[in-house]
């Protein structure tokens, strides 16, 4: 199966639920299990929230970009912002690391993404923005379960 979609929306936190459901509706086409869809929703939530809260510091006039592609049984989701970027990606990915403890962020966003997806790739430049690529092979996850 080969399919793709692109989505973009204003960086307001109300759009997080919309983005999560849209991606889930797209992914539904590969007939995932409930756990798989919950994981997809969770990682999209985390990445989109990061783009809005960290990347754009909640400026509602900015735009978040999502690209989803299904190639055979591999799903890739790219979440991109043209926001402040990340100085040190390795540090940002550390469990419990957060630059906004005052917002009661848990610092577990990237850890959750790495747990639920097969591959997480983060490209970021301060002042330019951040691009998070999430990849999951549904064939693998299925054969592992059986």
């Amino acid at each position: 199966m080969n399919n793709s979609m692109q989505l973009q929306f204003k960086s307001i936190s109300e759009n997080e639920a919309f983005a999560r459901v849209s991606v889930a509706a797209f992914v539904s086409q590969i007939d995932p299990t409930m756990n798989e869809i919950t994981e997809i929703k969770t990682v999209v939530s985390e990445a989109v929230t990061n783009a809005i809260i960290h990347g754009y510091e909640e400026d509602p006039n900015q735009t978040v970009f999502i690209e989803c592609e299904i190639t055979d049984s591999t799903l890739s989701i790219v979440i991109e912002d043209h926001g402040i970027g990340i100085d040190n990606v390795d540090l940002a990915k550390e469990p419990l690391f957060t630059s906004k403890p005052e917002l009661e962020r848990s610092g577990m966003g990237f850890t959750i993404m790495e747990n639920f997806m097969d591959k997480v790739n983060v490209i970021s430049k301060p002042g330019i923005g951040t691009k998070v690529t999430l990849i999951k092979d549904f064939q693998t996850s299925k054969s592992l379960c059986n």
Partner: protein
Amino acid sequence: IGEIQRFIRDDGTVKVSRSLKEVGNKIRRAADELTKELGRVPTVQEIANKLELSPEEIIHAQEATKKPQSIHETVFE
């Protein structure tokens, strides 16, 4: 995440299509009850509140039970 977890059905290997259908049935029941209670068609938010889900999740689940197969079904049923 709490909301999402509430959305998970007991068994992790259940297909979304089936699981959403169950939630879809709950939505239909909730909609019927609220319609009687309020004397009008409920809003998506009212159903979301009753089932402790977000309006967006209601839309997603509702899709599983109510697929307009044909125009006639949608308009005239």
